[in-house]
């Protein structure tokens, strides 16, 4: 069967918020855009984001005085200084416009109700009079690690409402979406990307898409933790694998993996941070609010990495509730009242009823920290342009842009999808305006042929080798138990051995089904090796980083070490090489010098270099790692020192 070939100006891989917002920007500029998505776009995992989207509009009383500079500061602190501060600045500055634009697209944001409102703040019921002047503006709720109430929301279905609004724009603009189609290999020559080979998940047939620009927007890689994740089954990190397999495009900070404090136990379904933002408590088995002792200032609303560690420690100390599925803690939102729970937290109410058969107005919710977000991903410059590969871009969770550093604040990822989608879409549009589609189609067909051969190889292999689901389960157990919330050299070394062995097993694994068509077992098998490669670089990156920063916590190196580790892990691994190559680049230009986050430990190893020295050599250093030139010069968006007025 001959491969089909499709051509387009812009190919977007992934139909979630980042990909579709990027597609809109390029299509609105007059370019031909094709979106490939493994599911119908409205089923992308963006739809599962619940609690909110951070943007400093400052519309309610508890948000008074908020501004993008405070948002920028919170984001840098949240990242434990691992973020690229210029990217965090661009993000915070553009988030308000992105949120208002979503209102224009139709998102029914929850609005300020002028007059007397009753809230729960730090465990107390508080009455606050919202000004009548702000009645009807976009409302905010509190989230972890922020100085002000900043999260804009639509009940607890913010991601769903945003995704439907953005996809409506995609339909309006007539953008072609090819759903149930999976990109499996980039078409490239080592320095220029020309699209992808893709596999149809209806028929199993392969085809080529050639494009002037290709955008990876495939979301995170949470499923390398198997069932121990809040992520959808489709978050298998395949965008990161596409980039890694080139051998030249690096991934950034793969060891930076976020654990969300409140996933439903044991299923791992997300329960939004908005529950704590709206006044919910965390309780141990003795009904004690342990977070008040641990973090007297922020209490339940410290950053996610900090809260998850305290929860994990609480359970290690024997204060969890023991069950056959392992221990958990309680989330208590009973005091918020049934009316609040069935309106502002409606999706949480439904999840509790449907999946554990309880009513959160009367019952405690069993929760435990669970893998949630991938700070790491395809390393890109501030334009979203991938390192070392012209014509390849990435946006959203799939990218390491890198505004989150080693810990993302709640509500910042939903905002990132839209801000990055707009900005990267603009850069993509500029790029395709000035380039032509000079691809050799033979290169495209060769890529398709390789992909077909990989599938054929799986179907032809027989014998008594291991099954793909057994390998997946072993990977998940290793990742959760050895590359989890608390990490040590011994466990990470063990994980490296286990995962490396599984990678070899993968070459001997055998399919139980040779069914023609999409064949679900084959579809998974084709992803398994890539997932294992991501797992290996995550474990090795964690082993090499002998410090604790954000979500990466080494019990054997408990301090943040700004003298040696104020840098970003960069890893390359071509698919024909046995070992990945690690290197380290500066995090980016530093405006806010490293300091205390305002929660968590205040102990750290101070940086030895001066900021001037750090910033001075940075451009060449990052260029050596493959960073391509940006449209605007480095540092152009930093507003040097403006943060100082806000502290």
């Amino acid at each position, binding site marked *: 069967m001959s491969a089909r070939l499709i051509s387009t100006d812009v190919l977007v891989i992934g139909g979630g918020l980042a990909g579709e917002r990027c597609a809109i920007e390029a299509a609105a500029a007059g370019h031909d855009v094709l979106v490939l998505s493994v599911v119908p776009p409205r089923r992308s995992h963006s*739809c*599962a984001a619940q609690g909110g989207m951070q943007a400093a509009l400052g519309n309610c009383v508890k948000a008074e005085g908020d501004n993008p500079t405070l948002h920028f500061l919170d984001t840098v602190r949240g990242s434990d200084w691992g973020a690229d501060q210029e990217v965090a600045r661009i993000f915070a500055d553009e988030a308000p416009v992105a949120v208002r634009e979503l209102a224009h697209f139709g998102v029914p944001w929850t609005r300020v109700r002028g007059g007397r409102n009753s809230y729960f703040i730090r465990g107390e019921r508080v009455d606050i009079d919202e000004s009548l002047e702000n009645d009807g503006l976009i409302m905010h709720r509190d989230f972890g690690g922020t100085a002000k109430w900043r999260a804009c929301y639509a009940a607890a279905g913010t991601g769903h409402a945003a995704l439907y609004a953005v996809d409506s724009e995609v339909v309006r603009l007539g953008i072609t979406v090819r759903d149930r189609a999976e990109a499996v290999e980039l078409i490239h020559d080592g320095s220029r990307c020309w699209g992808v080979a893709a596999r149809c998940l209806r028929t199993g047939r392969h085809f080529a898409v050639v494009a002037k620009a290709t955008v990876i927007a495939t979301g995170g890689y949470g499923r390398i933790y198997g069932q121990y994740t809040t992520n959808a089954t489709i978050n298998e990190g395949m965008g990161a694998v596409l980039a890694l397999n080139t051998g030249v495009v690096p991934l950034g900070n793969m060891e930076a993996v976020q654990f969300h404090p409140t996933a439903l136990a044991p299923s791992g379904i997300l329960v939004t941070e908005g529950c704590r933002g709206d006044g919910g408590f965390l309780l141990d088995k003795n009904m004690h609010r342990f977070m008040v002792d641990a973090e007297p200032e922020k209490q339940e609303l410290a950053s996610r990495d900090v809260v998850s560690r305290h929860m994990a420690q609480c359970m290690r100390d024997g204060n969890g509730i023991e069950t056959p599925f392992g221990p958990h803690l309680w989330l208590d939102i009973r005091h918020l009242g049934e009316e609040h729970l069935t309106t502002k937290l409606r999706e949480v109410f439904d999840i509790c009823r449907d999946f554990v*058969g309880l009513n959160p107005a009367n019952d405690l919710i069993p929760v435990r920290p669970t893998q949630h977000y991938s700070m790491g991903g395809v390393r890109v410059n501030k334009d979203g342009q991938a390192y070392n590969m012209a014509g390849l871009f990435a946006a959203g969770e799939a990218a390491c842009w890198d505004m989150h550093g080693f810990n993302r604040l709640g509500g910042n990822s939903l905002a990132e999808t839209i801000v990055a989608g707009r900005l990267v879409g603009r850069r993509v549009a500029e790029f395709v305006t000035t380039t032509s589609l000079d691809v050799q189609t033979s290169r495209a067909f060769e890529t398709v042929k390789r992909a077909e051969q990989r599938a054929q190889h799986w179907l032809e292999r027989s014998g008594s080798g291991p099954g793909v689901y057994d390998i997946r389960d072993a990977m998940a157990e290793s990742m959760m138990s050895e590359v989890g919330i608390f990490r040590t050299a011994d466990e990470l070394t063990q994980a490296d051995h286990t995962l490396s062995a599984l990678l070899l097993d993968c070459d001997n694994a055998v399919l139980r089904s040779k069914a023609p068509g999409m064949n679900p*077992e084959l579809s998974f098998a084709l992803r398994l090796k890539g997932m294992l490669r991501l797992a290996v670089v995550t474990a090795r990156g964690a082993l090499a980083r002998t410090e604790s920063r954000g979500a990466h916590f080494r019990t054997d190196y408990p301090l943040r070490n700004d003298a040696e580790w104020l840098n970003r892990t960069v890893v390359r691994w071509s698919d024909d090489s046995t070992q990945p190559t690690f290197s380290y680049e500066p995090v980016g230009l530093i405006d806010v010098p490293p300091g205390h986050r305002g929660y968590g430990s205040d102990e750290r190893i101070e940086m030895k270099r001066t900021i001037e020295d750090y910033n001075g050599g940075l451009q060449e250093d990052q260029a050596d790692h493959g960073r391509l030139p940006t449209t605007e010069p480095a540092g152009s968006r930093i507003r040097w020192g403006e943060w100082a007025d806000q502290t």
Partner: protein
Amino acid sequence: MTGSNAGKLRRLHFEIFRYNPEDPDSVPHMQSFELDEAPYMSLFIALNQIRETQDPSLQFDFACRSAICGSCGMMVNGRPNLGCRTLTSDLPEIIRLHPLPVFKLIGDLSVDTGTWFRQMAEKSEAWVHAAKVFNPDAQEERMDDDLAEAIYEGDRCIECGCCIASCGVANLNTDFAGPAGLNRIARFMMDPRDSRDETDWFEVISNEDGVFGCLGMMACHDVCPKELPLLEVYAYLRRKALASRFSGRKRS
């Protein structure tokens, strides 16, 4: 644990519709599987166990497994529901699973809802027809929070297709907007940001492919996993259709 069978774990007997259109040797048939029930076992867990331990060729769709993505609509003992939120403890020990009708079959329990809903969105122009272009420098337009909540209520549809599958009209008339389609239209109709007036809407809804095609059997209302108030939605649409017929006025 919920459900009428809470507490006692059973040997479950599944009968699952099988057909692979990509396999010339495949013919539609029912296949039986046995599975030991576990606490909190949903059809997401059960079907994955069957696929991973008994028949790896079994096709079905799940993504979020938390009843928000709408991927896993299927007929469960003759009634459409989301597989992920269906607990086996709520079902008898014989569980019959079929793909949703109306939608094109992809294989086994997997159907093509994406194409159906995209066509529906195109046909009803299910997007905000904004009267002005977005001004990035302006403060957001105000909206009363009660109205925002009302729009959100309709916006909660996850396009799982359960209502379409349950609808006698949608099963017979492929041009019928269907419950999800009508709900989508009502959602934009009540949104003041959408500039379409009642005469524009009249074209879309006041015919047998629109709200007057509904025979009022209301299975949609009973099966909707998000408990959308579809009865009220149709009443709203009929009222609007009549009002536009008599007044022909632009909406204020």
